[in-house]
């Protein structure tokens, strides 16, 4: 079986540089050594049964080109936006050094190793030192293949806004991975609102931050399929700051398992996680938030807040806040709450003529909006509010 997968991977690497082919072969071998976890078992099994190794650029070349042209043309002088596999040939050093090495590690888990081995495509965004990209960079794709990966490198002092709105159109479980590498003093606003089609999916956004870099991550998990996530910021250099703000909805029989972690490694780093989620129907929503402050990260600040609102008796929510602190001189705090809609609030709205259903929808919106309203992009915010309204109105048996 493995031999077969190995040769399939080799065959799919026709135009790839040698290092990438070897790395992907190693990934095939490595993934076998991990024990599979219940969370990833289904995904891996589906991929092994049908590895779907086509390259996205080849299979939907025109679309990828149009996508590329849209974002790249106005800025060709200043920065780079290429299909990932094309970039492997054009920028071999940058990719060899960074692709699934510094932010998402291909050696970290079976899922990551498989993701690299079965990689179908993605984008490479490179913003050189000191470049300020004013227009948002849109990562938009309808992806019919399971493994899609973006590598974003923002050089020292560079600034960018990245809007990721990708749709996985395959019935195969999808893994969307995005790596954000921030150089000294870089600033990135990153938005994500992805869609899936398979029953079970995974998405990872991991950032590596050099000193004094600032990352704001805004995440909306509004898709209705099962999802596991891995959101992570590594505040490696001193004085870096990461803020992760998230809103989620789980409905029907959906299971959302959300891992969010900020690592304070450098001194005077600031990490802040704010996540508000709603569970309705028979859904399961789990928030695992970790703020880890390592020894030597003096003057660090690590904060997190997880709130879940449950709209039915059958849904389940779990908030599991963890602070791991190895340094004495830190400021850390967490808050977590799980609860129903407040009965007095409901009564107040009903006393003005709103039906119980409408009052619940309004209160649920109200629960998510204070976080959603912090997303600075107005157009995106409005779209998300519309999506949110739809998800709340949906009725499941």
């Amino acid at each position, binding site marked *: 079986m493995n031999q077969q997968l190995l040769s399939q991977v080799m065959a799919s690497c026709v135009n790839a540089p040698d290092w990438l082919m070897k790395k992907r072969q190693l990934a095939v071998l490595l993934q076998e050594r991990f024990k599979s976890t219940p969370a990833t078992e289904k995904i891996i099994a589906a991929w092994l049964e049908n590895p779907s190794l086509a390259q996205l650029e080849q299979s939907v070349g025109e679309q990828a080109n149009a996508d590329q042209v849209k974002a790249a043309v106005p800025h060709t002088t200043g920065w780079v936006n290429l299909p990932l596999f094309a970039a492997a040939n054009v920028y071999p050093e940058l990719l060899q050094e960074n692709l699934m090495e510094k932010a998402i590690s291909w050696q970290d888990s079976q899922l990551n190793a498989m993701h690299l081995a079965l990689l179908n495509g993605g984008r490479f965004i490179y913003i050189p030192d000191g470049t300020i990209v004013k227009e948002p960079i849109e990562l938009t794709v309808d992806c019919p293949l399971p493994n899609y990966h973006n590598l974003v490198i923002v050089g020292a002092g560079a600034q960018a806004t990245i809007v990721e709105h990708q749709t996985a159109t395959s019935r195969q479980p999808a893994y969307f991975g995005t790596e954000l590498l921030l150089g000294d003093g870089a600033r990135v606003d990153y938005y994500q609102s992805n869609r899936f089609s398979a029953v079970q999916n995974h998405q990872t956004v991991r950032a590596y931050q050099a000193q004094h870099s600032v990352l704001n991550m805004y995440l909306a998990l509004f898709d209705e399929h099962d999802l596991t996530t891995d959101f992570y910021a590594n505040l490696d250099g001193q004085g870096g700051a990461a803020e992760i703000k998230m809103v989620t909805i789980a409905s029907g029989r959906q299971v959302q398992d959300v891992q969010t972690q900020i690592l304070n490694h450098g001194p005077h780093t600031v990490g802040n996680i704010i996540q508000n989620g709603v569970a309705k129907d028979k859904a399961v929503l789990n928030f695992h938030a970790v703020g880890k402050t390592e020894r030597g990260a003096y003057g660090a600040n690590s904060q997190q807040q997880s709130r879940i609102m449950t709209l039915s008796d059958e849904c389940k929510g779990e908030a599991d806040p963890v602070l791991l602190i190895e340094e004495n001189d830190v400021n850390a705090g967490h808050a977590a709450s799980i609860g129903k809609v*407040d*009965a*007095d*609030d409901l*009564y*107040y*709205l*009903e*006393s*003005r*003529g*709103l*039906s*119980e259903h*409408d*009052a619940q929808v*309004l*209160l649920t*919106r*109200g*629960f*998510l*909006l*204070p976080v959603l*309203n912090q997303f600075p992009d107005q157009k995106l915010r409005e779209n998300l509010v519309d999506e949110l309204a739809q998800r709340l109105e949906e009725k499941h048996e």
Partner: protein
Amino acid sequence: MTLKINHLHAIIKETGEEILKGVDLTVPTGEIHAIMGPNGTGKSTLSETIMGYPAYEVTQGTVEFDGQDVLSLPVNERARLGMFLGMQYPAEIQGVNNADFIRTAINAQRPEDDPLPVLQFIQRLQENMALLEMPDDITDRYLNVGFSGGEKKRNEVLQMLMLQPKLAILDEIDSGLDIDALRIVAKGINHLRGPEFSALLITHYERLLEYVTPDKIHVMVDGQIVKTAGPELADELEADGYAKYEKIRRNGVSESTTPE
């Protein structure tokens, strides 16, 4: 559009304690009535029971509005009959914009295919805010969140003016207001006064009644109405307090006008 309460008994669900012990009260269309009485006699419970607050349970008696049995209706249906309760402690609701909420509430009380046009809504909102001397930004803020006590009360009156109810029950709408705010709130109530509007004011003090002259004043003691008279009763209560009526209630003699 008469509100008719007959021999109403209500308990606190959780403890079983009886708060309303046979309330009889009629508020005819076009009249403004006040209920006065010492603390803890059930005035707020009465207003919340009429509106359907889920913590209270009616054990006996009836409440009718315009001939309809109110007690069998869910809270929002009562509102749709034209009843409005201005609450003593309005809820603070995060993430719900004040103006959006008021518009949603107005439209909830209209047929689905006939929402209030946005321009008309804005015009009415501005008129009423001007009447209540409210700052512009108050409608952009989240519903009652971070409002001062006075702002909350004014916001209740603003909602009343916007919803144009047939019956407004105002539960201690005057508490915590300074004299200017009280005058403004009274102006709001008087603005709606007319043959199609009735109101029930719940209050401790006669101060509000100097600005909104009631047609009738009822004195409530220990879960019952013990006295009903004209507006002059306010002066007597101001001078002598409730001692006389507490005594009457204890001795089991009620002076209340019995409903026909």
